[in-house]
């Protein structure tokens, strides 16, 4: 009964999404205000239905209803309760429902936010979101119904993929999808502006907080995935340039470009058509990611089961949504003219470089990810691996980082760096000195790019902090948007410090070792104390005990595990991880080699934690910036009306 209720709720949600799309697009176009007024109730009704469907699926999992095929395939009576809930998004059908639910959450938030905007514009935004929701609901109902029954019911289920039975991974998909789906809001704002044939600085101010918030969630989602891969997969790295990782990284890069381009459109009314294009691009790359993961066109460690029928369906709506938006762009963007100009050394220029370099970086990742697919289309097979990305990705990134400290010191519109040039050079000199001190004083050896990495990072930190500190000292107010930006930029510097340290100073060793023996790596010694059998709720396995010493001083104990999950008969590595003075000590237990020996992977990764801490700080910065009062007051009806009247319709207004 419960699954049927969920199925029925999904069908009603589809109908309501259709109404939301129709009234939202047709109402403003035909000037029917009663249609416009019907959009919000459709949004509310659709959300209630989606919540009902999700609740039904959660209930089926919690009650272990093995007459539902999806539950029988992804849960087991021995599965702990928390993972029964997380199992809802453990495979394709349920994670699609999660996607739809999060789109619903964003849509409701937008519906509340746009009450302060002109009614017809708001209706158009919600209409575009309705089209997206309709497409996904249709996809779910037509090809991926999570409520499909299994007759006769299974006595017990196949269990959740053991890889997914982990707290970080239980959170990773919701975070990641919140980010992915969040870019649909910027996309909807862009489409609404193009439908109106009008886009001004106020539009950019409306769009900014949504985009920044989505970007923050995406940053966090990617970081959680990376952290999980580090300790769970037992490979001991934080990024593998895997197709699915790349699929989440591309919208992040394009979204980062969009945040910066929106700033220019907001402050100066420039880059209008470029900003629109980026808004379309960021969401298109999110959709592309969804397509790549679910269609089976790309092989990857964490792709969902391949299904060409589904692939065709997603491709179809990908083409309609993105193709439609780009056609709208080709039609309407030529009407948008930016009036003002700017000097070469103004902040606008630096943000333009930022955008170009970020798009080049996106293109590098895009090329590497899709090259195998393109090659296959022409009859070749090709695989693109880490060496390509490691060689190509820094090419746009290093200039991007080096221009950052200068860019944030540059003024809008006018290009007079002269009085700041001296200060910038002084900070650069300090940064280089610090960098050399770190390399020589602490580590004593270096790769070619090591000092460059540290120097750029220090330069970014100094240049970012000088103005905010100055303002605080003079007791001037510091808007949240500036605080958020500063936090995010410093987070980027911390990220660079982390990556530079890990890439330059990682030590690793794979070795066979037996209980009672000691192995060394660098200044660390690892004593294999014992190995014991153990049992968990739905797995058994072995646990090793290692005591670690640094220059003879005991620092910590590590207990790496190797688990065998009963139902899926999959063995999993739980690495033993500890830190000492910022260095991450990683120990993974490999195979039983017989004769009392075990294969063991040891790694010392200095400051690898900075990579994840930085990503969380970036998300925090995004959150602070998105909560700036400026965005909220701009939404007051009176203010919005005044500003838009003052700004006037664009010269090329057509709608």
């Amino acid at each position: 009964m419960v699954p049927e209720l969920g199925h029925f709720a999904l069908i009603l949600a589809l109908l309501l999404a259709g109404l939301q799309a129709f009234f939202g697009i047709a109402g403003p176009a035909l000037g029917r205000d009663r249609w416009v007024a019907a959009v919000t109730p459709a949004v509310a009704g659709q959300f209630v239905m989606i919540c009902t469907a999700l609740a039904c699926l959660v209930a089926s999992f919690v009650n272990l209803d093995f007459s539902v095929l999806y539950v029988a395939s992804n849960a087991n009576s021995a599965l702990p309760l928390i993972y029964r809930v997380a199992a809802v998004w453990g495979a394709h059908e349920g994670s699609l429902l999660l996607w739809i639910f999060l789109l619903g959450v964003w849509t409701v938030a937008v519906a509340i936010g746009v009450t302060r905007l002109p009614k017809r514009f708001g209706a158009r935004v919600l209409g575009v979101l309705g089209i997206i929701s309709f497409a996904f609901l249709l996809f779910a109902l037509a090809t991926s119904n999570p409520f499909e029954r299994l007759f006769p019911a299974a006595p017990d289920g196949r269990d959740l993929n053991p890889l997914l039975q982990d707290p970080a991974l239980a959170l990773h998909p919701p975070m990641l999808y919140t980010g992915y789906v969040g870019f649909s809001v910027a996309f909807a704002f862009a489409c609404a502006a193009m439908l109106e044939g009008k886009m001004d600085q106020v539009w950019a101010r409306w769009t900014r907080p949504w985009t920044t918030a989505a970007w923050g969630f995406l940053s966090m989602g990617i970081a959680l995935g990376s952290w999980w891969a580090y300790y769970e997969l037992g490979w001991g790295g934080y990024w593998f340039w895997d197709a699915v990782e790349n699929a989440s990284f591309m919208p992040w890069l394009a979204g980062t470009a969009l945040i910066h381009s929106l700033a220019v459109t907001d402050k100066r009314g420039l880059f209008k058509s470029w900003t629109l294009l980026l808004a379309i691009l960021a969401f298109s790359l999110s959709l592309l990611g969804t397509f790549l993961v679910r269609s089976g066109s790309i092989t990857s460690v964490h792709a969902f089961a391949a299904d060409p029928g589904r692939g065709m369906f997603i491709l179809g709506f990908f083409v309609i949504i993105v193709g439609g938006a780009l056609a709208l762009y080709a039609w309407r963007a030529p009407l948008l003219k930016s009036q003002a100009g700017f000097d070469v050394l103004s902040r606008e220029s630096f943000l333009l470089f930022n955008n170009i370099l970020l798009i080049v970086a996106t293109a590098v990742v895009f090329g590497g990810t899709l090259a195998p697919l393109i090659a296959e289309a022409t009859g070749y097979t090709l695989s693109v691996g880490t060496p390509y990305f490691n060689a190509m990705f820094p090419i746009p990134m290093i200039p991007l980082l080096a221009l950052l400290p200068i860019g944030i010191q540059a003024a809008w519109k006018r290009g007079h760096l002269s009085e700041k040039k001296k200060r910038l050079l002084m900070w650069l000199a300090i940064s280089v000195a610090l960098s050399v001190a770190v390399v020589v004083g602490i580590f004593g050896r270096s790769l070619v790019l090591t000092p460059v990495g540290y120097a750029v990072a220090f330069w970014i930190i100094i240049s970012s902090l000088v103005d905010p500190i100055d303002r605080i000292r003079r007791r001037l107010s510091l808007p949240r948007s500036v605080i958020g930006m500063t936090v995010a930029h410093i987070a980027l510097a911390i990220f660079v410090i982390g990556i530079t340290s890990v890439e330059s100073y990682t030590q690793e060793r794979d070795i066979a070792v037996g209980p009672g023996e000691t192995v060394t790596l660098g200044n660390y010694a690892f004593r294999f104390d014992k190995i014991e059998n153990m049992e968990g709720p739905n797995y058994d396995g072995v646990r090793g005990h290692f005591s670690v010493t640094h220059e003879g001083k005991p620092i910590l104990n590590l207990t790496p595990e190797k688990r065998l999950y009963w139902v899926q008969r999959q063995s999993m590595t739980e690495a033993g991880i500890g830190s000492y003075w910022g260095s991450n000590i990683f120990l993974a237990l490999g195979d039983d080699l017989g004769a009392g020996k075990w294969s063991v992977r040891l790694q010392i990764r200095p400051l690898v934690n900075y990579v994840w801490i930085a990503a969380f700080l970036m998300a925090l910065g995004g959150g602070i910036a998105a909560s700036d009062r400026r965005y909220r007051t701009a939404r007051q009806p009176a203010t919005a009306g005044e500003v838009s009247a003052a700004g006037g319709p664009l010269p090329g207004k057509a709608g």
Partner: protein
Amino acid sequence: MMNRFLLPLGVFILLAVVLYVGVQNSPDREHLRSVLIGKPAPQFTLPDLMNPGQTLSNAQFKGKPYLLNVWGTWCVTCRVEHPMLMQLAQKQAVPIIGLNWKDEDESLAHEWLQEFGNPYTAIAQDKPGREAINWGVTAAPETFLVDAEGIVQYRLAGAMTPEIWEKEFLPRIQGNPTVSR
């Protein structure tokens, strides 16, 4: 005249074509080809599930084509596939040899067969899962088509369906002279 605002749309259309070809190609990748295809099937002698204390060898089926179906009572997809196997057994299209994979206890398999019917001509027991490794089994269910000469002709990873039977198995059984003999 080409306007620069059309360029993104043009690039996107190119991408869509590539993705289309990608989707078209993906079924090949899904039904993972086996290295065994065109090679002699691995020979096994395993405990006979239906006759306790006796062994079963696939050598005794040589001379006629047969299917080797890998299954287990713990496997949900096997349950989904089961009615299809029952239909094939009723048609007596081809003998189906079961490889009962990693079932901890015989009684589980016997209960399953009593409840849902037995489509198998004979069933070999592979409790430790060693034989499945010889066949390169990655996940149950899997079905191999072995011809009269003992050569593996086809491997299906996943559940058998009427469509797959008609499209992949029947032509190989009827069309191939060594198989149909």
